[in-house]
């Protein structure tokens, strides 16, 4: 009994440590600039000051930014997962020739430093008229993220029980049917994890959206957070307010998706 609680307590303490920075952001988001200047970032706010949040929301049309981020991250999450499934099916289960080299190519694609791609991608996007469009960002990130998903899924599907597939083939199911009817449902836990990762990674991407989404009406939340960094000035309370607004949607999204993940915690293997 004692041991059970000591383990639990240490896990909870660790969780609290992980969450401290979030508390600090929230603290400063509701603090007036004068309060911040006199007391610093770690003092308790004297009053609940919500002007920073309201001002920031209106200044950058945050609603529009949320929609852009949602559109881009959502599309990328789904499209990249679909692409990953198709690739992993061919590599993990189909075991096509040269599988390992194909995987390496995929991985390298996921891992190229984005700085290395930015100038060429700019010229290519300009050439096909997609510079300053959300579609360009969706396509780029779908490819980059699916490269990772392919690698993860391929190594999981590599251990897929073949008896099931052979049984399906005897029943006359084609490759497409086997994929959608058998492989996808069984790997659903991994697929939900991929969806969440892709969504959140894309949500937090800053560098390429900054370069590719020029018009304010196309910009995403992290780029809007960057708007605050003026020439030589940055007001800390307003940036906290913006940070809070930037974190919230992703946190909410994650908590919603958590529920689909938890179902499996005690169910164990799907066999």
């Amino acid at each position, binding site marked *: 009994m004692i041991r*059970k609680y000591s*383990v639990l307590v240490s*896990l909870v303490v660790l*969780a*609290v440590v*992980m*969450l401290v*920075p979030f508390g*600090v*952001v929230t603290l400063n988001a509701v603090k007036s600039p004068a309060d911040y200047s006199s007391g610093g970032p*770690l003092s308790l706010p004297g009053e609940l000051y919500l002007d920073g949040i309201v001002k920031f929301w209106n200044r950058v049309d945050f609603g529009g930014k949320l929609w852009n981020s949602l559109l881009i991250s959502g599309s990328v999450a789904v499209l990249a997962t679909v692409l990953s499934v*198709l690739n992993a*099916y*061919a*590599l993990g*289960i*189909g075991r096509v*020739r040269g599988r*390992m080299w*194909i995987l*390496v190519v995929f*991985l*390298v694609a996921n*891992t*190229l*430093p*984005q*700085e*290395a*791609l930015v*100038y060429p*991608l700019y010229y290519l996007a300009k050439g096909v008229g997609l510079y300053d469009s959300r579609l360009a960002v969706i*396509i780029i990130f*779908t*490819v980059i993220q*699916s490269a990772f998903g392919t*690698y993860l899924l391929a190594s*999981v599907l590599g251990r897929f029980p073949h008896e099931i597939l052979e049984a399906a083939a005897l029943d006359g199911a084609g*490759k497409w049917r086997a*994929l959608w009817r058998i492989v996808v449902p069984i790997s659903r*836990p991994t697929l939900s*994890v991929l969806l969440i990762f892709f969504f*959140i990674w894309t949500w*937090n991407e*800053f*560098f390429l959206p900054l370069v590719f989404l020029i018009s304010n009406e196309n910009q995403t939340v*992290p780029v809007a957070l*960057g708007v605050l960094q003026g020439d030589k000035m940055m007001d800390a309370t307003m*940036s906290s307010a913006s940070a809070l607004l*930037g*974190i919230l949607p*992703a*946190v909410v999204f*994650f908590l919603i998706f958590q529920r689909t993940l*938890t179902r*499996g*915690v005690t169910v*164990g*293997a*799907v066999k």
Partner: protein
Amino acid sequence: MTTRSRDRGYWVFLLPSFVLFTAVIVVPFLMNVGIGFTRWQGVGDPRWAGLDNYTRLFADERFWASFRNNVALIVAMAIVPTIIGLVLAATLFDYVGKKVGPRAASLLRAAYYLPQVLPVAVAGIVWGWIMHPQFGALNELLKLLGMEPRNWLGDPGWALPSVMVIMVWFQIGYPVVIFMSGLQRVDPALYEAAEIDGATWWRRFWHITIPQIRPEIYVVLLTCTIAALKVFGPIFVLTRGGPGGATLVPSYFSYQNFFEKANVGYGAAIATVLTLVIIVVTVFFMRIQDKES
């Protein structure tokens, strides 16, 4: 690579990716390699420079220093989080999930994962406050305990270790989530049998958990190593490679040349070298993994 031959026709599934990859990755990367052999300011016509950028690069002390710093970050972003993540995931899955309830386990998992959700620009601001030499929470805490306050991000000896600690905080959630979803594939009968045999928790961890989720462990180690090689955002917001280059990493170094010095050719050369390093690491990992399976 020899497996029993299956019927072909699976390669059709790779077609959509093949087309997209060529357009978004392969062609731009080859262009980047080409730019690496030129002097170019990003706009206008590049001028051919042959191997100039590379001879300059290998003589550049800052370039070598940036790779040395990168090794430290691989420890902080790949090795340490994988070890901690394994223990946490196993404890949550096998102990908290079963003895306290699945709800508690998923709540704790959410708490560990949340830092991954934090936009990196925000994380930088917050950690800057926590480690602030004059009013930072960390120094306040140390003073309370009667210990020496330090200039965490401003002292060349402490800056890199401080960044490493922040990166561990940043990364832990990712292995925990991946390992826990991997553990769901494991047959519970294995654990039950071991428990009936009277195996301790550690023995079960060592002999069942780790072997069963080996693929996930490889995935995490590899992806985190590569993430560490590419690390840019945290360095950019925390230290900008400072103080005096103590936390410079290759990707920030290439960024400086791309966007601050308008040396696009030199930046492209750095990015190319970094990519080659990443390819070598990747092939190395995949070889090991392939042997295992």
